[in-house]
């Protein structure tokens, strides 16, 4: 669906944020792009979302075109800071902005807004100005805004930042239900097993240093440490006590493992 080849992006001040990245996102794939602060994840997100042009290399969308604007309705790129994403006068207008711009009919958009508002606890906030919301509410409104036009590929830059545990779970469920591809960019590995089947590690120099299955990457302590990342808490807790192939990656897996041991 997205095929990046030899992509490099250098900012005007000479900083190379991403370097010679080859990355293909297939249909229905769940991918987490992880990396330390300053590794270039957000720049890679912008380049894949067609919001910043690479200074070298190409990005092809859906095997059809390298012009992101031509397929804008199929790409859902959520920016890291919801303040940059919410610019309408009410939350409702912000959620329906994408559908309106991308040609969804008004009744379909209304139904979508109602459904997402119910799912993300935004019903009472629909007529409020976005800038009057709390950080978590803004984040939920931004997520509703990107889900509203039902893109084929979701590119989400740190989507769980300010969201509380309850809505984080709800967002995970919505992402699971989403039929298309999901790419989550995050510096934290805790939620990775819940959202991804595949992990791409971006090194400090902006190049892709690993690309593999979730278990393979998250249990590779040396790889993660080298690139400024920390394995999930359950991996750190059970490391050395459990066979690497059985290391629990999530709390649910850890609970299951412990219950099995007790029984």
């Amino acid at each position, binding site marked *: 669906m997205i095929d990046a080849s030899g992509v490099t992006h250098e900012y005007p001040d000479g900083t190379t944020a991403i370097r010679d990245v080859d990355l293909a996102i297939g249909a229905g794939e769940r991918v987490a792009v992880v990396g330390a602060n300053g590794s270039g994840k957000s720049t890679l997100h912008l380049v894949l979302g067609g919001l910043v042009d690479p200074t070298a290399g190409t990005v092809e969308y859906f095997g059809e075109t390298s012009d992101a604007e031509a397929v804008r309705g199929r790409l859902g790129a959520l920016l890291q800071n919801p303040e*940059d994403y919410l610019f309408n006068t009410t939350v409702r207008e912000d959620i329906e902005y994408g559908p309106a711009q991308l040609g969804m009919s008004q009744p379909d958009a209304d139904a979508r807004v109602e459904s997402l508002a119910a799912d993300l606890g935004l019903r009472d906030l629909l007529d409020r100005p976005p800038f009057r919301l709390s950080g978590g509410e803004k984040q939920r409104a931004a997520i509703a805004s990107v889900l509203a036009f039902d893109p084929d590929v979701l590119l989400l830059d740190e989507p769980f930042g300010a969201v509380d545990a309850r809505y984080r779970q709800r967002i995970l469920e919505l992402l699971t239900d989403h039929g298309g591809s999901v790419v989550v960019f995050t510096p934290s590995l805790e939620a990775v097993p819940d959202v991804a089947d595949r992990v791409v590690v971006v090194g400090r120099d902006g190049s892709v240093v690993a690309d593999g299955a979730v278990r393979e990457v998250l249990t590779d302590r040396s790889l993660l440490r080298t690139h400024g990342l920390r394995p999930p808490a359950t991996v750190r807790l059970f490391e050395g006590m459990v066979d690497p192939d059985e290391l629990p990656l999530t709390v649910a897996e850890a609970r299951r493992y412990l219950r099995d041991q007790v029984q």
Partner: protein
Amino acid sequence: MTGVVGRSVESITGALRRAFAAERIAATDGFLQRRDPRITVCSIAGLALAVMLARSLAATLVVGGVTVALARASGVPVRRLLARSAVVPIASAVVVLPQAVLLPGDPLVRGFGLVVTDAGVAYVVAFTLRVGAGVALLSLIVMTTSFSAVVAALRELRVPVALAWVVAITYRYLFLLFDELQRLVLARNSRTAGRSTLRGGWRDARRIAGTFLLRTLDRGERVGRGMRARGGARPPSPYVRSEPLDGGDYALAGLAGLAVVGSVVIRWLP
């Protein structure tokens, strides 16, 4: 907030919020709050137009009386409305004040080699009252109708979409940018020990202004990306929602229409 910079930012931000965010009154029940925003915008604009066209003190006072009546019917404290509307007419009065001595007419007062004429005073008073009535009417819209409803009404009235969009985004980002400025000042204050001197305050103000400008440009770029990510590169195509009008809407529109016709009669018919 402390220091010259902090107090200035706080007062500017406070004034901005008071000027634009009268959402509490807009959320209450009242005559104008119940009106269709399209009717409110057109009628208030019509009344303001009537004041400007008539150029008569009596017509201005009548529209002023209508404005006060509308404010009362909408639960807007008249004193607050007048306070909000006072700055612009006072500034206008200062600008046109020389007309009191420049316009020929019967002398009222002489002094310092100047002659204040009756025609000059009448002009200054009429002009100031006209501006005051117009500003009070605009304040009334802002205080009784949420800004998003006003923007939606502009779109429905076929005001060029791009213009309505610019108004909406300007409104949205005024708050955001002043929040940004407030955060910068708070960050500075949280690391400032003791009482700041005037000189130190201005030095910090220069630094903050530079950073604020860079942040503003950066945010503008990021917001542009946020818009493009959701089809913002295409021409704006918002959904339009229309509600059926009721008796109150027709009454207000009729009143405004009558005022415009009356002002045309006063101005152009013998």
